[in-house]
Every structure is written in C-alpha cells, then in structure tokens.
C-alpha cells in the first residue's frame, strides 16, 4: 500500500484526467427521481458528491443485468459465432463506498474460485475501483456489524478520504497506482493518518461472531415466518445487492440469429426454484427469504469462507415492505 495526498480542489482535475485516459468512467449521478445511480460520465461536473449510497451497487460493472455471452448468425457458409469478451471496455468505477469495494472480494471468489468464469475475469481485470470513504450514513447502514467500516480499503484499488482541504489517498493495488499515475503531479507523498474523525459513525447492530455461531441452528427458527410474511416476492433486494450473484441463462432470437444471455435472477421469485416437472421445493416467501438471509450469513461462509453481506443497507432502503435484514437476522438468531 502507498499513501498519498491530493488537494481536495484538485479532485476534479484528477477525475477529468481519468476520463481523458480513454477508459469508461462510471460515477454516481443524481437522477430526476432524486436517487443516485452509477452512470458513464464525461466530466466531473456530472458527478454527485452529496449522497450516502447509490441506489444500485457497482456490481453491474462485473456482472451486468444482462451479459451477452455470445451471439450467433446463420450464414450461407454455416453458423457464425461471436464471443463478446473482446468487447469489454477498460472501466473505472468512481465514488463507490467501501462496503461496495469489499463486495468485489466475494464476487471474485464466487465467480472465479471453482469454475472460473471468463466473462467475470475479463471484466474484473479491466476494472479499477476508486472508492470514497463515507462521511455520512443513514439508519440502514450497518457495515460496522459485518467487520467493515466507513473507511475500509478491502477490495478497492484506491480509497479516497476527504479531510477538508486535503484528501487522503490509499493506493492499494497496481491498478490503483496506474490510475493515480494518470495525474502523478497532483499527488504528493503523505504520512499515515488516522481517518476516524472524517468517517461516519455507525452503531454496531450485532456481533458477527455471535451471529455466525447462532445461525448454525437458525434454520428451524419460528421467527422466519414473522420476519418474512411481509415479503412481496420481488427482486428489488437482490438486484440492488452488491453481492447477489444468481443468474438465469436465456437464449433470445430465432434460428437464424440470436444470442445467449446471462440475466440477473432473484431467489425471492417464485420461479427461481421451480423445477421443469412443475415441482417447487420452495413453496412460499418465508422459505425464499430464509434462503436469501441464510445464504448471506451461513452458506457463503461455509462455501467460500466469506459473509456475503457488506452492510450497505440497500435491501432495507429499496424493500417495498421496509423489511430490515439486520433486524431480521437478529430475530432469527436470538
């Protein structure tokens, strides 16, 4: 790790230099709806700075809502197949939060550990994550309960922490170094500083160690019904989640022309577990929501050694029923 300093007033110049480097730059943009989403931008003036969290996470940069795996065209000579990996652009994600940065650790384990996924690998390789620490939080934020904090560097290539006139820069990876080097003159060496006073204060809602222990026997808790009956069965939580990575492979087209797609899917949907025979092992929303929460706090720990909830709070903010994951996980592990 390398520590640098940049004048906060020089941030726009650094940002615009990144755009000048020819990469796609995704940054938070304030939409008419009042929500903030990552979008490709052309100048720093488009970037939202006053936001707690983006509506959706940055996962779409490595796991798009629809990924074209390949396309085919029938010609007189035969069938022409086109692999889409070559089209993946070099991308910088700017302004994601430390929780989202750490979410990439899980995504990488999920997509690359057992059966490495070429599309994810190519996208991740071409992505640089420039994260900005949180100075503000809301009552849905709970990163401090899942062993992270508003200034975590884990998973990010660069972490920027605004400290008034100066911005503290933690350069974590060679990709991060390359991003900084696009504006080398703007960065000066810095000694290590304590970031705490510049970070949001977020209460610890639960002890991760206790949850990990108690969730081992939580499957049969009668509380699942209480915490899940309100679930409407939509995919808002899964689609906004930075680590939900389930997908549905779809073929679209005709016999002459078409494509194979990988689309976001959600365990909250009734169709998610429906078998071809018509049998559905998950018959109600209580079982589906239990699956989602158990996956975050138990199954992903068993399978990949990682709690796959980063405490970003999005599922709480978007839930039409305002269901609260940390409140629910406490109820079922009591």
């Amino acid at each position, binding site marked *: 790790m390398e520590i640098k300093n940049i004048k906060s007033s020089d941030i726009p110049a650094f940002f615009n230099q990144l755009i000048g480097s020819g990469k796609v730059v995704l940054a938070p943009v304030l*939409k*008419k*709806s*009042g*929500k903030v*989403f990552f979008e490709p931008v052309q100048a720093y003036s488009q970037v939202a700075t006053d936001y707690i969290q983006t*509506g*959706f996470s940055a996962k779409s940069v490595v796991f798009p*809502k*629809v990924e074209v795996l390949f396309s085919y065209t029938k010609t007189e000579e035969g069938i022409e197949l086109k692999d889409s990996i070559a089209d993946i652009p070099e991308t910088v994600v700017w302004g994601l939060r430390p929780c989202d940065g750490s979410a990439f650790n899980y995504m990488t384990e999920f997509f690359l550990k057992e059966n490495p996924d070429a599309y994810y690998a190519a996208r991740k390789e071409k992505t640089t994550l420039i994260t900005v620490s949180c100075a503000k939080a809301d*009552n*849905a934020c709970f990163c401090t309960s899942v062993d992270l904090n508003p200034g975590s560097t884990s998973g990010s290539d660069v972490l920027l922490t605004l400290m008034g006139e100066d911005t503290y820069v933690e350069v974590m990876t060679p990709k991060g170094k390359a991003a900084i080097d696009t504006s080398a003159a703007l960065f000066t060496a810095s000694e290590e500083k304590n970031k705490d006073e510049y970070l949001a204060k977020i209460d610890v*809602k639960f002890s991760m160690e206790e949850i990990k222990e108690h969730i081992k026997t939580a499957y049969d808790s009668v509380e699942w*019904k*209480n915490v899940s*009956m*309100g679930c*409407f*069965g*939509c*995919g*808002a939580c*899964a*689609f*906004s989640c930075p680590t939900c990575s389930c997908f*549905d492979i*779809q073929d*679209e087209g005709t016999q002459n022309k078409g494509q194979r*797609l990988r*689309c*976001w899917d*959600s365990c909250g*949907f*009734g*169709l998610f577990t429906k078998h071809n025979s018509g049998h559905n092992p998950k018959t*109600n*929303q209580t079982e589906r929501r239990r699956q989602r929460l158990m996956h975050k706090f138990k199954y992903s720990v068993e399978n990949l050694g990682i709690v796959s909830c980063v405490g970003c709070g999005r599922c*709480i903010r*978007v839930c*039409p*029923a*305002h*269901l*609260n994951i*940390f*409140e629910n996980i406490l109820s079922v592990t009591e």
Partner: protein
Amino acid sequence: MTPLQTKVAELFENGTITLMIGFKSALTKLPVPFFFNTASQVEQLIFTPECKGNLSVYLHKPEVKQAKKVGLLANISTLRALVQLTSENQLGDIEKTVLTMNAQNEVVVFENMDEVEVYVQANFPEYSEEDKKLLEQLNAMTRTERWQYWTDQFSACVKCYACRAVCPMCYCSSCTVECNQPQWIKVSSETSGNLEWHTTRAMHLAGRCINCGECGRICPVGIPVHLLTAQMNLDIEKEFGAKTGFSCHSGYALNTFKAGDKEQFIK
C-alpha cells in the same frame, strides 16, 4: 394501549379474528407490514401517516387464504382496493374484518363490504398535486416526446417486478412474464422488452388500477410507473364514466357491456 390496539386485542379475544395484518414500527422508523397472531403481540401495532403500504395485497397470499378469520388494517387506498377486488369477485372465500382510522382519529370497524363502499365513496381520494402536475407535463408532450420519455424511463428498469409485487390488482396466480412456452415477454431486461412488460401491465390494469401509487413509490429505480395507469383511469372515467375502486357491484369498465354503450362491434 391505543384505542386501535385495544380494539384489535378485543377482536382476537372474542374470536372474531385469528390473524391480523397490520403495521409495526422497525429500527429504521419505517412501518413494516406485520402478521399478528395473538392479542399479546398487538402492543406493537401502529397506524401512522407513514403506513402507506397497501396491505390488501397480502389477501392473495396462500397463508392468508388458509387462515380462517383475517383482520386487515386499511388506509384509504387499501379500502379502495378491497372495493375493486370485491367487484372482481376476488374476496369471496376470505372471512375478513376490516379496520381503519377515520379523519377524527377514531377506530372504524366495518361490518361488511357495503360499509366499506360507503366509507370509500365519502372519502374518495383525489389525485395528488404532484401526480396531477406530472400528468399535465406528459399530456403536454407530443407523441414522440412522450415515447422518448417512457423509453428513457424504462431503459433503466431492471425487471425486479416490485411494481407487480406490491399491486393489489396484480393477483394473477401465474403472470404472463412467467410463461415461457410461448415466451410473450423477454426475461432479459432491455429497453424494448421493458416497455413491452410495462405496457402489458398498464393495459391489464386499465380501469382496474385503484391509484394507490405504490408501484411508483417503491420502484427501486425511481420510475413513476404509476402514471401510466393513473392516466388510463382518467381516460376510462372520461369515456365510460366509471371510477375504479368506487363500487363493489359495478364490475370494471372494460369487462362489462351495457345496451346503451356507443360501440357497435359487440352487437
């Protein structure tokens, strides 16, 4: 205990209800729909202006249909949904007790749907000022502009189907998007398929939507999707003089035929 909590506890104790669908407060301070099973849980029951959710959606849940006697805490949108659902013969088997708080902050327990209908007609909600303004803006656009507006909006849709999930009138046990043989609407989320989905949904709800606005309020992307059906309701009212969620007995405009209707094709 609040008067509402006392009343609901009484309903549990005298056996009128065995399940109460209401709201309780959560750590995030936002009301959460909750299914109360005993009088002892009722102390958590709340009903505040933030309780905007339309709890009538839950009447379609298999677990609720199985419960013998259901209590339902209703805001005005929920009451309107109940009226519309009744007119569509969707609530026949459920033995329900509906409660609300009136403008004087008194607990009202409805004896039957006729009483709900009277209450709804006396307190019929207007379109919000914000929605009126948005609809005016949309109607002032040219067709091309309006097409562009909705194309832009729906390009961001991720097909989470939250709009469908929270809609009390979206009660089909199997939705058209869940049919894959043949596949009417693409599973993937992209602009044309998203438009296809939202157009299908709007057409299906034309003259049935009860204007609760939940689909627009909860869209995680912030698409004002409720405006589509809100406009259609205005059109239906203009053409057929029919208000949605207004009468338990009138059916809905696009599903009924009257001898005096001006259209000739059906005769």
